[in-house]
């Protein structure tokens, strides 16, 4: 009986060995909390992307309609050259419409690795906008204090093949439960991109950043891309017709 109790206690200890610190939050719960903050059933947002080039900086305004992880529709509002350009993502397919050519073009192959509007984000980055829990297995490396705030340092390894970033390291704010800083790595361990976020606000009961900064670490002298969220609404009813190819031309 005594032995049984010891074995039970041992198994229990093993089972709870992944419990973290004083908050008693597990890695899975941490990932789920991040996903709960960043992902929603649907989102409608207006944003500005400030692309810092080597000669000039450009600001691109757009409006996005997003449902789950599969469907998104983006309309670029300015500058004039980009205004009217639309992009539709449906599942693993991406189409772009440009008013200059009046053509709907499917973006595929090596083009998906190209940057979106000259930013430090690629089309693949957009396509892989899925919850972390679906794509990665995580472990907690340590905790760190940054600007007086506690952060969990997570190491994420891909659980599915074919991801652009098979390895990631994230600094997750213990209060906001958002990855305030991330490093995205290739399979071999080469740092490909880094991201950070700030301007955290409470929006519809969740913490959400109003500014993201992406930096392509492979671009020499890259000054990064800022993505500023001007307005965001979660869980809005979006009609299915919003995601039709016919709407690209309208």
């Amino acid at each position, binding site marked *: 009986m005594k032995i049984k109790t010891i074995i039970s206690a041992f198994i229990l200890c093993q089972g709870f060995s992944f419990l973290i610190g004083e908050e008693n939050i597990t890695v899975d719960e941490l990932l789920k909390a991040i996903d709960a903050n960043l992902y929603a059933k649907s989102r409608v947002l207006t944003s500005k992307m400030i692309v810092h*080039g*080597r*000669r000039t900086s450009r600001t691109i305004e757009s409006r996005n309609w997003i449902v789950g992880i599969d469907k998104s529709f983006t309309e670029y509002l300015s500058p004039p050259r980009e205004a009217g350009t639309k992009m539709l993502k449906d599942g693993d397919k991406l189409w772009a419409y*440009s008013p200059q050519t009046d053509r709907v*073009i499917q973006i595929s192959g090596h083009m998906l690795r190209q940057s979106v*509007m000259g930013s430090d984000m690629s089309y693949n980055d957009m396509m892989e906008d899925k919850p972390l829990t679906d794509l990665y297995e995580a472990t907690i490396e340590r905790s760190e204090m940054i600007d007086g705030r506690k952060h969990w340092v997570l190491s994420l390894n891909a659980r599915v093949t074919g991801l652009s970033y098979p390895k990631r390291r994230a600094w997750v704010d213990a209060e906001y439960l958002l990855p305030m800083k991330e490093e995205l790595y290739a399979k071999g361990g080469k740092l490909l991109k880094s991201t950070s976020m700030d301007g955290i606000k409470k929006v519809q009961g969740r913490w959400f950043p109003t500014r993201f900064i992406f930096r392509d670490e492979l671009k020499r002298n890259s000054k990064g891309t800022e993505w500023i969220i001007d307005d965001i609404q979660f869980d809005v009813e979006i009609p299915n017709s919003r995601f039709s190819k016919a709407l690209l031309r309208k």
Partner: protein
Amino acid sequence: MIKFLTKGLLRDRSRSLFPVLVITLTVAMVVFTIGFMRGTMNSLFLDTAVILTGHEKIVTRAYNEESQLMPNDLALLDVDQLVDELRRDYPGFFWSPRITFAGLLDVPDENGETKAQGPVIAFGIDFLSHGSRQVEIWELERSIVSGKLPKNRNDALISSKLANRLNISAGESVTFIGSTMENAFTTYNFNVSGTFNLRKGQTDKQMMLVDLSGARLALDMDNAASAIFGFTHSLYYDDEAAVTLRDQYNKAESDSLDIFSPFMLALRDGNQMGTMVDVSGAMIAIMGGIFLVVVMVVLWNMGLMNGLRRYGEVGLRLAMGESKGQVYRSMISEAVIIGLFGTIIGTGMGLVLTYYVQEHGIDYTKGMEALSNSSMIMPNIFYAQVTPDLFYIGFIPGVLATVLGTMLAGLAIYKREMAQLFKELET
């Protein structure tokens, strides 16, 4: 004296006709062979220069660092002004802006939806400007497989390999998908005016050629260019002159602290081209040297034989009271006259032949097509090249070797015993 000797040579054809013929043919052969070797090497360089490097190429310092990535955000600005200055300051070259870019080529179906798509490497070349020599140096009239040359800025020539892969033909419309100079997403419709085959292996596998103005519109590169290419008017690459010009330009115009300042590169600064230029120069020197030595031995031998053949005549002249020195000098003078005469005619013939092949070339297209899987950029037509040294190189074997041969043979005159002369003449 010269008049007297010349008359003698003309009247005695055995002493003049055959030697002059031999010298003429040999010198013509030397001039043509060296001109052809130079021209062939130049043809090899010219193909690379036309597609990749120019004889001189101007880019920004930053573009040069990342040129493999075709970074048009680092392109040259105010290009029209830059080209005007180059034309004014360096009139020995013709200068032309070029945009090199890559992306996807999308072929629409009848509903305007993607039917086929493939990667493309495109060149925006100044085809349409008045006086542009780009069609000539790309040899496009000869390379067109179907359709016609671009006539307006939206026209594009597609390589026949790419056209076959995407199943497009002249007259169809295609959409280029890529990035502007500011890295923004861009799409641009081009009309396929024709297809071409450069017949240079895999070089044009994904190639599209458009006019510079079309590329500027597509990539939002108003008055900008990836590079400015410079070519000598004769299309002959003179490495020494190119390197001197490069150094002179960079010293005067390029600022090492400004990554966007213009920076000149000579053909030899392209990938491994420096080694190619050096190796080809050494090869021409070695092959030309060996050929020259062989030819000199032949002409020397002819001079020697001529001297020996006139053994009896020399004896008679000595017996008649001419001094050995006089006879020796007259024989050398005759050799100089024959050598000069043959060399001048031979050089003329060689230059005419070289110039003909320089203008018309020798077509090896069929042979080169057999090598179509090779990745090396090979010319199909080999041209000779008339260079300044061809005007005097023939004098080395033509005059020098003949005179040396005669001088050697003439030494026998001094060994003749006067007492033996009449005995020899009796026999």
